[in-house]
């Protein structure tokens, strides 16, 4: 049912867990559908994602796509991260069963949500700093 790659990422998830000092966090999905993904990123001053972590409630494909997505955005700029498509995640995992494609969509959305959150925080911070000045 699952490719070797998916099973590998499920058994040995990369970047699993909350990271320290994250400045972007996104959570997508809901328990009703059986999948919740939480993504943490720490973006440095150059706009590069220095560190990333995830937590996932969901099926094997949900875990594997989260794990793969974190790998694919780590060390990339936030702009590049926003370009991450679910299709790219599926390809990197050497395919997913048709009924599991929605998991990769969720992973894409989680990344976007984390980046959005980072942008929001930056804007807030900037506004706060401007206020201070």
């Amino acid at each position, binding site marked *: 049912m699952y490719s070797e790659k998916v099973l590998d990422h499920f*058994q040995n998830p990369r970047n*699993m867990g909350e990271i320290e000092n994250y400045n972007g966090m996104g959570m997508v999905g809901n328990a009703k559908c*059986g*999948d919740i993904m939480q993504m943490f990123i720490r973006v440095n001053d150059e706009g590069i994602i220095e560190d990333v972590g995830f*937590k996932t409630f969901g*099926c*094997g494909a949900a875990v594997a796509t989260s794990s793969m997505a974190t790998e694919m955005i780590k060390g990339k700029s936030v702009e590049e991260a926003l370009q991450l498509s679910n299709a790219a995640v599926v390809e990197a995992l050497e395919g997913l069963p048709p009924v599991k494609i929605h998991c990769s969509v969720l992973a894409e959305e989680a990344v976007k949500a984390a980046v959005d959150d980072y942008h929001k925080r930056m804007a807030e911070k900037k506004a706060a700093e401007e206020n201070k000045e």
Partner: protein
Amino acid sequence: MKRVYLDNAATTRLIPEVLNEMMPYMTEVYGNPSSPHYFGQQSQMAVDRARQQVADAINAEANEIIFMSGGSEADNTAIRGVAERYAKKGRHIITTAVEHHAVLHTCQMLEKNGYEVTYLPVDEYGMVTVDQVREAIRPDTILVSIMFANNEVGTIMPIPEIGELCHEKGVLFHTDAVQAVGHLPIDVKAMHIDMLSMSAHKFHGPKGTGALYVRKGIVLPPLIYGGAQERNRRAGTENVPGIVGMGKAIELACTDLDEKNRRMMRLRDKLIEELPKRIPEIKLNGHPTKRLPNNVNFSIKYIEGESILLMLDLNGIAASSGSACTSGSLDPSHVLLAMGLTHEIAHGSVRMTLCDETSEDDIDYVLEVLPKVAERLRKMSPLYHG
């Protein structure tokens, strides 16, 4: 890798003794039972013998047994058959919210065709009561269809009492006994059952063979029209080896049933008692006592069923889940939801179903592996803050 099969509610291993009985009918004896010549009559005799074996197992008469391709076909035949045949009398059917899809989807199809179906709710244990059935019966009720035992949570319904009520009220009573036949003692006469569905592969018989018991005097239109097989009640060349295997399997399953069940219940109860000690925040699904001897079903909070299954599988343990993710749909098990579980908890269920061949060793292995799996997945879960 050690492999432990705990998905016997999904299907069982065909046991060698049954296969042996089938072998002649997959080699020399290949005639069509409808053919009057030597080759055909050899097959016919085997089919007759199996029919008697199946009848004996549930205290029916041989000519009350209609062989077909499985439990789903039996459910469809019974329900659709009664609906078509008795449409003039009424168009109301009573069933439960926790039936197998073979019953539920058939009922939903009938609803689209002008029938009215009452889906009785269940309590937190997945149980319906006789009183619920009594209150639901109307003058235009033509059928009550209630499963003997639930395939997901193992809850055993009060079948003899419901049967008696139906007969008092003059309403036909069908029971989907796919999970019960070969597992619980059944007497269709004493239990006032008019129609009963069964499936051979659920009691160590072959896949692709089942039967519908239809009490003498009840005439249903066939679901499959064609030749005169099964006394015009189900067309199609008989699956002779399958039928022979079903006969042998049911006979074996019903031999020393009590003893086998006692053994299985001890192992079942070991899981039921030990797992909560080793995994915090888990919940047994289904009835604590009125429960199939082979069924264990737990919800493990904060984690999701398919990933539990997958990790068990990677450790050699085959189990099942009420999670939507195993089926590709989005909603989790309709059974668990009907029992009042939240989506989140329902998604995190694991079903382990034992068989006669399950060993103490197998159970101990599960007791060792499952807690580790739960811990590992909980660490990954955004819902868990342990």
